[in-house]
C-alpha cells in the first residue's frame, strides 16, 4: 500500500515598512532613484558612525504585531547578525534575535470554505541590505560587481509563521492574507514586484501519522503568490519522490527557477552560518509602555476579517463575495465608498467582482489612483439606474464601457446617447402591436401553449426599440394582447 504523505510549511515574510526615512538614519526610503543617491555616512556604515532608531519604525512594528494578534514586548532590543557580504556595508545586519518586538500571534485563512488559524511565531524589525549589480550573470562569472546602497537601511519587518501550513494553497492564502493585513494597517505597500513584500518558505514532508518533522528545505526567490504555490507544489513532490526512491532529503536552501518551473539547490554550505548574534552595543534597549501600545491600538483600522464579517452581516453578501472584495484594501475601500451611494450591496458587489475587476485586470489601473476613470459613486449610480428601471442590464454594460472611456457619470452618458429605457406602456404598445401583426406564426405557437415563442417576440420588440424598451413591460404587454 502506498504511503500517504503530509506537507508541513512555515513561511518567513519580509515586508518593507513605508516610513519616510530609513530605520537608523535620515536617508530617504523612496523606491528607485539613481544608484547610491539615497545614502548617508550612517547607512553606508562608514567608520565611526552610529545608528539611531527611527521611532516610526518601532510604531509600525508594534502596529503590525497588533494587527497579527501578537503580544507586544515591553522590553525589546536590537542585535547584530554577523555575516560577510558586499551588499551589507557593516558586514553585520542590525536585526532582532531573542527579544523581538512582537510574538505569539495568528492570522486566519479560509480553505475550502473552512476557517483555519495559522500561528505567528514572531514579528521582528531589521534593516534591509543593498543591491549587487554584476557585470555578468553572477559574481563568480563577472569581472566586477557594483553595489547600490539605496535600499540599505530601509526598515523591514520579518514575520515568521509556525509550521502549521499544510498545503501550497494554504501558503498562498496565508501570504495573500498577510499582504491584506499589512496594507489595511498601512504599514507597508506590499508590492511584490518592487520587493517590498518577500517570502521564503520552509517545507518538509512526512508520512501521515509520523510525529517528527521531516528534513526541511528552504525555498527562496518566489516573486509572486502564484510562484510561491507552484514552488511549494514542485518541492513537495520532489521531496516525496526522493523518499519514495529510498533517498533522504538534504537540508539545504533551494531557489525557485520560475522559467523552468523547478527548484534548484544553492550551496548547502550556507547552512553552516554562525551569525554570532549579540546585543548591538550602539543601541539602547527599548522599553515599550502599555500606554504607547494602547495609543497605537486605537489607530488600528478595521481589518479584513472584520470588514468581511460586516459585509456578510450588514449587507447580506455571500461569504465568497465578501472575501474577494476584502482581499484587497483598495477594492474594499472602493466598495465601501460605493455603498454610500446605493443600498443594493449585492448588485454593487456583482459589478465590482465582475465588470470592474475585469477592467482593472485588462487596464492595469488601480482603483485608488487619481486617474481611475470610474469613481465608486459613478458605479453605484449605474446600479441605481438599473434598479430604477432606467436602463436594462444589457445597456448598462455599454454604459460601463463608456464610463471607462469618458470618465463621465452614467446618467450623463445615458442622456447624451438617448439610452434611457422606455417603460411607458403607450409608447411600447404601438411597437408590440406591430410585432404581433408581423409574426402570426409565433403568435399562433404561443397560443398553442409554446411558451418559448414569447422570447422571440420580446426580442423583436427589443430590436425595434434598439434595446431601450423595458423587457418586463414588453413581456407583460405581449401576454395581455395575445390572450
Amino acid at each position, binding site marked *: 500500500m502506498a504511503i500517504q504523505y503530509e506537507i508541513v510549511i512555515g513561511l518567513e515574510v519580509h515586508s518593507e515598512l513605508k516610513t519616510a526615512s530609513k530605520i537608523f538614519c535620515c536617508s530617504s526610503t523612496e523606491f528607485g532613484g539613481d544608484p547610491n543617491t539615497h545614502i548617508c555616512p550612517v547607512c553606508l556604515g562608514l567608520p565611526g558612525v552610529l545608528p539611531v532608531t527611527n521611532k516610526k519604525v518601532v510604531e509600525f512594528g508594534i502596529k503590525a504585531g497588533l494587527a497579527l494578534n501578537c503580544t507586544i514586548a515591553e522590553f525589546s532590543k536590537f542585535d547584530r547578525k554577523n555575516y560577510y557580504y558586499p551588499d551589507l556595508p557593516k558586514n553585520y545586519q542590525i536585526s532582532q534575535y531573542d527579544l523581538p518586538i512582537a510574538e505569539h500571534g495568528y492570522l486566519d485563512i479560509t480553505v475550502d470554505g473552512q476557517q483555519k488559524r495559522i500561528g505567528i511565531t514572531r514579528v521582528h524589525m531589521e534593516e534591509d541590505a543593498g543591491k549587487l549589480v554584476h557585470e555578468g550573470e553572477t*559574481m563568480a562569472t563577472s569581472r566586477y560587481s557594483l553595489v547600490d546602497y539605496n535600499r540599505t537601511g530601509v526598515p523591514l519587518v520579518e514575520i515568521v509563521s509556525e509550521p502549521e501550513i499544510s498545503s501550497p494553497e494554504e501558503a498562498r492564502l496565508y501570504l495573500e492574507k498577510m499582504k491584506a493585513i499589512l496594507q489595511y494597517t498601512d504599514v507597508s505597500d506590499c508590492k511584490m514586484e518592487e520587493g517590498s513584500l518577500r517570502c521564503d518558505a520552509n517545507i518538509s514532508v512526512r508520512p501521515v501519522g509520523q510525529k517528527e518533522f521531516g528534513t526541511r528545505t528552504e525555498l527562496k526567490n518566489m516573486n509572486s503568490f502564484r510562484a510561491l504555490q507552484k514552488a511549494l507544489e514542485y518541492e513537495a513532490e520532489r521531496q516525496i519522490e526522493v523518499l519514495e526512491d529510498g533517498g533522504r532529503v538534504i537540508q539545504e536552501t533551494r531557489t525557485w527557477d520560475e522559467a523552468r518551473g523547478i527548484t534548484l539547490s544553492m550551496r548547502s554550505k550556507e547552512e553552516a552560518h554562525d551569525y*554570532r548574534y549579540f546585543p548591538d*552595543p550602539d543601541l539602547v534597549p527599548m522599553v515599550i509602555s502599555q500606554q504607547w501600545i494602547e495609543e497605537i491600538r486605537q489607530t488600528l483600522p478595521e481589518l479584513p476579517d472584520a470588514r468581511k464579517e460586516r459585509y456578510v452581516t450588514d449587507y447580506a453578501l455571500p461569504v465568497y463575495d465578501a472575501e474577494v472584495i476584502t482581499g484587497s484594501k483598495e477594492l474594499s475601500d472602493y466598495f465601501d465608498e460605493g455603498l454610500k451611494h446605493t443600498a443594493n450591496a449585492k448588485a454593487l458587489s456583482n459589478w465590482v467582482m465582475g465588470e470592474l475587476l475585469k477592467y482593472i485586470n485588462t487596464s492595469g489601473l488601480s482603483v485608488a489612483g487619481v486617474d481611475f476613470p470610474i469613481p465608486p459613486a459613478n458605479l453605484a449610480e449605474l446600479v441605481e439606474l438599473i434598479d430604477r428601471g432606467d436602463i436594462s442590464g444589457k445597456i448598462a454594460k455599454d454604459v460601463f464601457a463608456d464610463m471607462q472611456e469618458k470618465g463621465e457619470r452614467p446618467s450623463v452618458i445615458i442622456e447624451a446617447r438617448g439610452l434611457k429605457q422606455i417603460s411607458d406602456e403607450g409608447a411600447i404598445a404601438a411597437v408590440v402591436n406591430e410585432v404581433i401583426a408581423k409574426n402570426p406564426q409565433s403568435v399562433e405557437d404561443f397560443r398553442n401553449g409554446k411558451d418559448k415563442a414569447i422570447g422571440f417576440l420580446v426580442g423583436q420588440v427589443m430590436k425595434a426599440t434598439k434595446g431601450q424598451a423595458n423587457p418586463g413591460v414588453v413581456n407583460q404587454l405581449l401576454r395581455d394582447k395575445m390572450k
Partner: protein
Amino acid sequence: MQFNALTAHELHDRLAKKEISSVEITEAVFKRIDEVEEKVRSLVTQTRDKALQKAAEVDMKIARGEKIGPLEGIPVLIKDNMCTEGILTTCSSKMLHNFVPPYNATVVEKLKQAGAVIIGKANMDEFAMGSSTENSRFFATRNPWDKERVPGGSSGGSAAAVAADETIYSLGSDTGGSIRQPASFCGVVGLKPTYGAVSRYGLIAYASSLDQIGPFAKDVRDCTRVFGTIAGHDPKDSTSAEFAVPDYTSFLTGDVKGLRVGIPREYFVEGTDSGVKELINNAIKKFEELGAICEETSLPHTEYALPVYYIIAPAEASSNLARYDGVKYGYRDESAEDMVTMYMRTRSEGFGTEVKRRIMLGTYALSSGYYDAYYLKALKVRTLIKQDFDRAFENFDILISPTAPTPAFKFGEKSDDPMQMYLSDVFTISVNLAGIPGLTIPCGFVDGLPVGLQLMGRPFGEGTLFRAAYAFEQNTEFHLSRPKL
C-alpha cells in the same frame, strides 16, 4: 616666552588681553613640532595650513573686539580614530591608510564651533588596541621623558605631544585605560569621562560599550575646560546621556575638607612597583593633610575585570571591525581574483597582529556554543563589578589608586607577551566596565619617570574628581615638571 609650553587657560587670558595672537601660538606649536617631532613621533598627520588659517580667523575676531571662548584660537591635537572631514583618519592602520572621512565626529564639530585650532592627528595603537603605541602600523611614539620607553597607549601620541609641548592639549579615547595609562606614563592630566557623557559619533569604534573620548591636558583647569566643551547629549549617539553640563571650573575650589576618599585594597596588591606604591601613599597623606577622610574599602570583583574586558572588548571589536573588507574604502588587496580571497588578503594584510588577535578572540567568544560560557557570563560579571562601585560610592565620594602598576616600560619589553601588556591596564579597566569617570594626575616620579594617581568617581561625578584633583595639584608641583628634549 615659549607659548607652546603654556596651558590653554594661560593662553586664553593672554589672547583676550591681546598680548599674543593665535597665529603666534600656532606657529610656536609647529616650531616645537619641527624641533622635537623627530624624537617624539607623536603625529601621523599635520594640518599646518588649515591650522594657521583658523588661527588667523580667530585673530581677526579678536581684532574686531569680539569676545572669544576659552578654547578659541588654542591649538589641539586629535587622536587619529576620530573622524575629521577632509583630513586623513587612519586609526594608525594600514587598513585605513588612505581614509578621508566626509564628516566630522561630534567632538570635532564641537571643538570647531568653540574655535579650536586643529594642528593634526595623533599616533595610536592600531584601532586603539594596545598599551604602548607600539602597535601603530606607521611608527612607534616615544616617551618624552625617556626615548627608550613607550608613551603608553593606545592614545600614546596624544599623551606624548602634550608632555612634549607639541600641542596645548589633545583628545584621546579610553576603552580600558587608553587615556589614563599614557597620561600617567607621560606625566600629564587625562580624563576618561562617564560612559555617555561625550558623544561617540565619529569615534571609530573599538569596543562600543566601553569607548569614551576624553582630554589630555597640562593641568586640571584645562581638563575641565576641554571636558566642558565636548561633553553633552548628542542625538546622533543613542548611548549618549541627557544631562545638564555644569560649569566644571566651579568645582576648582582647592578645598577637599570632609571629602570621603576610598582606597580599594585590591589595587594595592603584589605586582605593583614599590616606587609607585610609595607615591600613592604620599598622595593619600597629602589628601589627609588637606582635610579629606581617607579609608580603605573593597571592590571584591576586581580580579575578574581583566578577563571580563578581554571577552567583551574583543567580541564587540570583532563585529565593529568587520566592515573593513576592501569593498568600500581603505586598503584593498588588488591581486585577488575572487571576492572571498580579496576579503581574506585585505584583512590579513590590512590589520596588524594585535588587531587580528583580538578579532579572533572576539569571534570565538561570540560563536555558537561558546556565547553563554564567555560573552553572557562576562556581561554578568560586568554587572557585579559595577555593583562593587555602586556600593563603594555609598560611603565614599571618590576612590583613588595607582593609574598603572609601573612607570613607562621600555620598547619591546612587553610587546612579545600579550598577557604582560594587558596587565598594564589592570587598574584602569574596571572603570570602563562600570561606566564611571576616571581621572589621572601626576603624583611624582620614580627614577625620573612620571607616575599617575587615579581618581574614580560616581557616574557624572566628574566635578568631584576635578575638585579633588585641583586641590592636590594646587598643593604639589608635579604637574609643573617638563621633560628635557
